[in-house]
């Protein structure tokens, strides 16, 4: 329990900081691997190029997606202690949304890494979208017609 509480505290601080991620020059590792904005001794070719997202029109979408992934992770992190401390339908539906979105993006990353070939990857992503949509529908159905996620966990733990 103490751990859960601590996570909650951590999370509220983290939320604010994660939201300010974009203003600090933090980018997906992938981009930073070959776009550098740090001075490099012995090689001055790119030194004057400032690559933080705010200076790059056109690359906003990728960076915004990356930031959104972190924001959803932080939200999910906060929702877990929230579900324990204040089990209610707001938390139930927020959990349904955050769980599905975080999983959808997470598995999407895995598909990007391991499924090769344009057509196959497109098909897999379409399948993933279908599964995620059904999962979200299922969780909402459970929240509406059954006991809801928070109470379900509580009941399970009473066993």
């Amino acid at each position, binding site marked *: *329990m103490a*751990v*859960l509480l601590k*996570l909650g505290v951590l999370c509220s601080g*983290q939320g604010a*900081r*994660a939201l300010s*991620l974009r203003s*600090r020059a*933090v980018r997906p*590792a*992938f*981009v*930073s*691997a*070959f*776009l*550098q904005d740090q001075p*490099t001794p012995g*090689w001055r*070719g*790119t030194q*004057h*190029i400032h690559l933080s997202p705010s200076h*790059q*029109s*056109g*690359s906003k*979408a*990728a960076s915004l997606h990356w930031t959104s992934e*972190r924001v959803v*992770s*932080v939200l999910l*992190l906060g929702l*877990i202690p929230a579900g324990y401390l204040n089990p209610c339908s707001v938390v139930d539906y927020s959990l349904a949304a955050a*769980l*599905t979105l975080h*999983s959808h993006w*997470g*598995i999407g990353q*895995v598909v990007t890494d391991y499924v*090769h070939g344009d057509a196959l990857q497109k098909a897999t992503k379409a399948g993933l979208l279908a*599964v*995620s949509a*059904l*999962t*979200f*529908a*299922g*969780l909402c*159905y*459970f929240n509406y*017609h*059954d*006991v809801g996620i928070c109470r*379900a966990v509580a*009941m*399970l*733990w009473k*066993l």
Partner: protein
Amino acid sequence: MAALLLRHIGRHCLRAHLSSQLCIRNAAPLGTTAKEEMARFWNKNTSSNRPVSPHLTIYRWSLPMAMSVCHRGSGIAMSGGVSLFGLSALLLPGNFESYLMLVKSLCLGPALIHAAKFVLVFPLMYHSLNGVRHLMWDLGKGLSISQVQLSGVTVLVLAVLSSAGLAAI
């Protein structure tokens, strides 16, 4: 871990091999977006037709590496579990309580119940705590090798302790 590796490899290999080309390409910085850079990277990568990296069997295992694999593994497993739960809510007859009653009627011993609870919470605790570690890295904190090692051990210890605590409830 992956980000570190990639950054490391990117900084060293790409610079060594492509520095002259990159120099010329990046000479007109306002004309290139990160998107175009990515497209160029992927075009080059696909056209060179190399085998898929990494070649898993040639690396010596380390704690951060194993933890990275487990983060992905636990994420995939929990996503599978959540989807299974959601789909069952849609498809299976009977409500949640009826299934709980079914489990109750099996009269599993307390040891088995607590063990099952541990198996359920451990991936969540591990992935959540390690997720915080990832988020710290994303803020640019704790990226030195010794810090990565220390935070890794911390996450493991906290994950085991918190899971044991929650399973005992």
